[in-house]
């Protein structure tokens, strides 16, 4: 007797056939397709799109403020992703930066649908940079495409030098990693040597830049790096 269903057919003769639907689809397919469209639309407009990632309080908004001393604020547009509030939008507007606020409420990261809706209602005339400050989080936004031309991770000295080892996924796609709050390296015993070694293991090609709010000139190198990356992406055709 067949053990599986109790029928009278011997196991060997029990024909079990399977109907199969071959799907072969990425679970993020819908999101990724829209991200692809955003990527191209921004490239056509010569707007370089940066996905700015990092923990809550890493210094993401401070980095944008710092950059605006070396890149004209009139050339920067920002999409702010926060669970709640428009505090960061107000801060950036004080620096003369055009900002659109998204509130994800419970959402732990932005997706391409949210970014697309923001872009539809924004005026990007004359902008060279679109900086998307993602929701502060080192896990969930990793690998989620939102149409960005590059990922930039803000990693502050106060979070500790073990972050690349503990949260590798966020670092794996980054073109640029900013070690922010570098004025506090000694205060918090930040082990820079170990940090650099660990990050190069995860992402050997990454460019690392140090910034400090206490030294406005520290954002100059970052501005140069971004300008360079912008030319690289916009000058080359269809490579991503």
């Amino acid at each position: 007797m067949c053990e599986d269903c109790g029928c009278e057919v011997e196991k060997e003769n029990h024909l079990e056939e399977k109907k199969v639907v071959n799907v072969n689809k990425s679970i993020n397919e819908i999101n990724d397709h829209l991200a692809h469209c955003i990527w191209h639309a921004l490239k056509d407009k010569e707007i370089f799109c940066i996905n700015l990632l990092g923990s809550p309080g890493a210094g993401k908004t401070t980095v944008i403020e710092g950059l605006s001393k070396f890149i004209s604020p009139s050339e920067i547009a920002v999409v702010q992703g926060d669970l709640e509030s428009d505090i960061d939008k107000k801060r950036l507007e004080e620096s003369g930066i055009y900002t659109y606020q998204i509130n994800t409420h419970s959402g732990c990261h932005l997706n391409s649908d949210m970014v697309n809706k923001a872009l539809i209602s924004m005026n990007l005339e004359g902008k060279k940079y679109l900086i998307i400050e993602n929701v502060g989080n080192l896990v969930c936004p990793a690998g989620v495409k939102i149409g960005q031309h590059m990922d930039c991770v803000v990693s502050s000295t106060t979070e500790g030098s073990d972050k690349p080892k503990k949260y590798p996924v966020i670092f794996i796609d980054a073109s640029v990693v900013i070690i922010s709050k570098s004025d506090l390296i000694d205060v918090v015993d930040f082990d820079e040597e170990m940090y650099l070694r660990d990050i190069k293991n995860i992402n050997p090609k990454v460019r690392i830049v140090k910034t400090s709010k206490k030294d406005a000139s520290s954002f100059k190198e970052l501005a140069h790096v971004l300008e360079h990356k912008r030319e690289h992406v916009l000058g080359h055709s269809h490579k991503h």
Partner: protein
Amino acid sequence: MHESAIVGNLITTILEESEKLKSVDEVILELGDLTTYKKEAIEFYYDSMKNHYPVLASSVLIINVIPGEVECLDCKKTSIITEKFMIFCPECNSSNVNIIKGRDFVIKDIKEKQNV
């Protein structure tokens, strides 16, 4: 934690793709080891959500974890990385590599068992 959202997407896609089936018995997935999703968490959320959909009630997920694989631009070999998130060529130790596998989460097949 954030697997609950991705399992929502997963169920939507399974329901769309399985319209011609009477019931879904097995869903074969490939989960990259270098993603932010954990196999156990996906299984946990799937098992708690599937009961809302009669066609999925008796289904199981078969998740094949795909390890990270790199293509070396120096020695031209492709290899599975020796340790998760250690991105270099195990053959020649070069860091000049591209990650070619382990970044995706893909639904491969949906199966219905038919007892004849």
